[in-house]
């Protein structure tokens, strides 16, 4: 039988210092992320300086973390089809920064799917050619607003 009690785990992250995590907040990725197959346990962090992004931080190696964004904030018509059951799962996409231009891009081709109840995660690759691995996150400077 699994214990019901909540245990607290402390991890030392690269950007946010030491963070306390309740064990029921952990997401298990049986296959890891592509290129990170051996990293299987993560926690989702919402850091106030980088709102509205979220961070997927590895528990196995807390120096590894991925900035994420809600894909519908990048493309309101984003349609991952049957890959995701929106009743029980949520999706995030991985953020990268352009090398030259200062622009955020999001990997709309390979979303992370997280089970709300199951606490299981996976990175899927969509068959459709419609979505790019580096879709610019359209932004406006505050002057232009």
């Amino acid at each position, binding site marked *: 039988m699994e214990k019901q009690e909540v245990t607290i785990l402390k991890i030392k992250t690269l950007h946010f210092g030491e*963070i306390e995590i309740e064990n029921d907040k952990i997401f298990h990725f049986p296959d890891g992320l592509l*290129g990170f197959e051996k990293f299987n346990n993560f926690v989702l962090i919402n850091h106030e300086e980088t*709102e509205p992004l979220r961070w997927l931080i590895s528990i196995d190696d807390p120096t590894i*973390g991925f900035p994420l964004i809600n894909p519908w904030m990048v493309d309101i018509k984003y349609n991952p089809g049957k890959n995701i059951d929106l009743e029980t799962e*949520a999706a995030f996409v991985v953020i990268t*920064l352009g090398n030259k231009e*200062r622009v955020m891009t999001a990997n709309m081709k390979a979303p992370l799917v997280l089970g*709300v109840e199951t606490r299981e995660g996976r990175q899927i690759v969509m068959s459709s050619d419609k979505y790019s691995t580096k879709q610019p996150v359209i932004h406006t400077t505050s002057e232009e607003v």
Partner: protein
Amino acid sequence: MLVLSRKVGEVVTIGNSIEITVISYDRGVVRLGINAPKSIAVHRKEIYDKIAETNKESSNVEFDMLKDLLKNTAISSIGSEKNKLEHLAIHNTKKD
């Protein structure tokens, strides 16, 4: 690596549920037909490599540059309600 020779129209099976058929061969291009259960993802390897590369870049994102960019970026929250998981993230406030 197991190497097999197949003619056009011939099939290779992997396990009980995967079949790969050589559809055609023309000027160095082989077309394959793949039958596999839905649970098995089939993609060109370049796509996987590209995504792995993107993940690596993401894990190396320069934190300060990202913070700066976000200051000048107005990301609309329209559409965000499609996701149910927002409240499951751990909130972390800035520590000086």
